[in-house]
């Protein structure tokens, strides 16, 4: 029982989708392969899915007199939930965040349905030792209710009136179109991407912590025009990583979640990396880069480097006992 099995594979999925239709054309098969397959699947799959004169195909589709194709089976293939998938679902029932999505009655029904299933893992099998401890309180009924309102509003494109306490303790009230939710593994918090709405217009995007919402009201007004989630401003920083204390590997691992371009320095054995980041997260990135000590040097932009220089200078003074 492993996820690396053909029963979950792309080829089975494409065959299943083709066999779900009562009738389809060769073009439909090619379209399904293009939509669901890997880039090279079109080189391999058509000759297996489409009936071949020498019968080297899988024999799952038959050619009709009018040239169309239909499945050889009586029924569309069922998407049977495997034991592995049920064990994964069962494990998730113990996760505090699961209760954000389902109410007590639904959870009871799910627990009954999966009563005989052994969970794939238990929460105590995992320890996230550097996760921040001030994460959202998923057990709070108000938080859960707010989460559900936000989620429904995102799906329905409904404007919401939100009361909110900012990070500086200010109370703010605004109307917005909720766009999407973002979860941080490190912070253990959910944040809402939204676009403020004023005088019949969508304004710039903003991001708020779900845990800071103090009041939320559905407006019954739905935004029918398409709207993009306004992205956060992006920045780039170029750093040099020296080949000392295994820094190159540690750096590349730690910043694996960033979009980046890396080039090895043949002479030194270190590397130069250009990281793309969200501007609001600049301070977080700065302190993470500084945590590598002298093994990482921020090269540019100048303003970013200057921030590092300022902190380092202050630290040098402290270390020398001058402050």
């Amino acid at each position, binding site marked *: 029982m492993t996820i690396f099995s053909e029963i979950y594979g792309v080829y089975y999925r494409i065959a299943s989708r083709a*066999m779900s239709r009562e009738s389809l054309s060769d073009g439909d098969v090619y379209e399904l392969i293009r939509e669901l397959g890997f880039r090279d699947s079109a080189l391999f799959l058509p000759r297996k899915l489409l009936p071949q004169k020498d019968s080297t195909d899988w024999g799952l589709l038959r050619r009709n007199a009018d040239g169309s194709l239909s499945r050889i089976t009586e029924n569309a293939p069922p998407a049977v*939930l495997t034991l592995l998938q049920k064990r994964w679902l069962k494990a998730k029932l113990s996760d505090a965040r*699961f209760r954000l999505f*389902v109410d007590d009655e639904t959870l009871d029904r799910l627990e009954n349905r999966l009563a005989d299933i052994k969970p794939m893992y238990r929460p105590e099998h995992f320890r996230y030792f550097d996760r921040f401890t001030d994460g959202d309180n998923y057990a709070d009924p108000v938080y859960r209710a707010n989460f559900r309102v936000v989620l429904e509003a995102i799906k329905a494109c409904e404007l919401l009136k939100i009361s909110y306490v900012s990070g500086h303790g200010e109370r703010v009230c605004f109307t917005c179109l909720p766009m*999407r939710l973002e979860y941080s593994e490190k912070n253990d918090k959910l944040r809402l991407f939204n676009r403020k709405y004023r005088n019949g217009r969508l304004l710039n995007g903003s991001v708020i912590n779900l845990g800071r919402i103090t009041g939320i009201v559905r407006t019954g007004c739905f935004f029918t025009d398409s709207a993009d989630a306004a992205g956060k401003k992006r920045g780039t920083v170029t750093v040099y990583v020296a080949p000392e204390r295994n820094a190159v590997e540690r750096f590349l*691992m730690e910043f694996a979640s960033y979009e980046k371009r890396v080039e090895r320095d043949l002479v030194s054995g270190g590397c130069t990396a250009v990281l793309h980041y969200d501007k609001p997260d600049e301070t977080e990135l700065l302190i993470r880069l500084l*945590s590598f000590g002298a093994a990482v040097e921020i090269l540019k932009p100048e303003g970013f480097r200057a921030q590092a220089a300022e902190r380092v200078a*202050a630290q040098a*003074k402290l270390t020398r006992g001058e402050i």
Partner: protein
Amino acid sequence: MSGYNELIKNFEKTRDYVRDFFIYGFKVRGDFVRKSARTYDDEKRRVESWFGDLLRYDDSIRGRQISISVDSEHIPENPLYQAFYSKSFTDNDIRLHFLIQDVLFDGRALPLKDIVDEIDSRYGIFFDEQTVRNKLKEYVSEGIIIAEKRGKTAYFSLSADRADVFLEEFNGLDDAVKFFSQTGEFGVVGNSILKAAGVENDLFFMKHNYIVHTLEDAVLPEIVDAIERKRFVSLRTFSARSGGAKASENFIVPMRVSASVQTGRRYIVGYIPAYNRFNSFRLDCIRAVKQGDICAEYDDIRAKYRKNEGRCFGVSFGERRETGNVEPLVVTIRVGKGEEHIIDRLEREKRCGTVQKLSDELYELTIDAFDPVEPMHWIKTFIGRIVKLEGGNAAARKLFDDDIRRMNEMYNGKGGETSDDIQ
């Protein structure tokens, strides 16, 4: 490229290539020395086929380097899951997959012989009994087929649980699966449920998400299962620094998966009977896992582990010669007016440390950990505020002082410009 197939039999080899493309990004053809150039070409083509537009090509003086470059925060689905959906199979495997399910679709339970006969009569395809029996046995273990004994004969029926029906029947479950398919443990399994039901995640995006962890999902279930069954495991590992060249076998009693959400590393922490101590092994450096016998002393070892875990800042149990002789690390941090967020940081990030207020501007952080070097990476995030560093170990303190001196020269020149305030 003759003989090239975009599907693979063995995940382990491909996992190394995907990891190298994703993590390192600067490797060129000549750097992949573990296998032949032909193997590299095939693996590269597969990765290109699976990940398409996410690949980036940069020409350097060393050659063309290929990388998978994505910002995990801006994608609704982990693209590395594709690697799991590429397992090869035989023509008979896929035929039987659909034909057996169709024969049993109406809910009947049939014996093997009847299933073989119906496949033959309905679709004109004959399979011998042994082939069908093997597939049925495999699908019983996968939970797709249910077997029951009636007298001496085994009857087989199709499981009634459907991915699409489940997601509709339980209100909110579809959103939960979308969420958990992108975060937490074994998200790829949740993603497979969404794929089966024809649903896509369009709601949740993940920040600080190490999508490369999914490549460890191939070995992790066996480890977790061994923890649950209180069994020994044998780990075949390699050294990351040697580029995979140095391999070793490790016989351990697995305790817990210990994961960092900040450095991208995950470990299995276990007890090594041969050395009578706890140690951790990086999951991305484990090639294979084999379960052994039940460990009779498992509960006792776990009790000791849980006691010791409280003195691990991360996953290190320190140097043996130092254990018991290490002084707590004490760091004095300066917090200016209006910088209460620094106090919040200390509180939420201190792990096994304690924080004490010394004055309006000074806070003392005490970390009594087995390995006083381990907290240093985090402590350096407070550069510009560290008034005093005491205790711990002398080498770590010296390294810190050297680092600051070198950084000051690096950023502020010899002698170093100085600044009084940082914001």
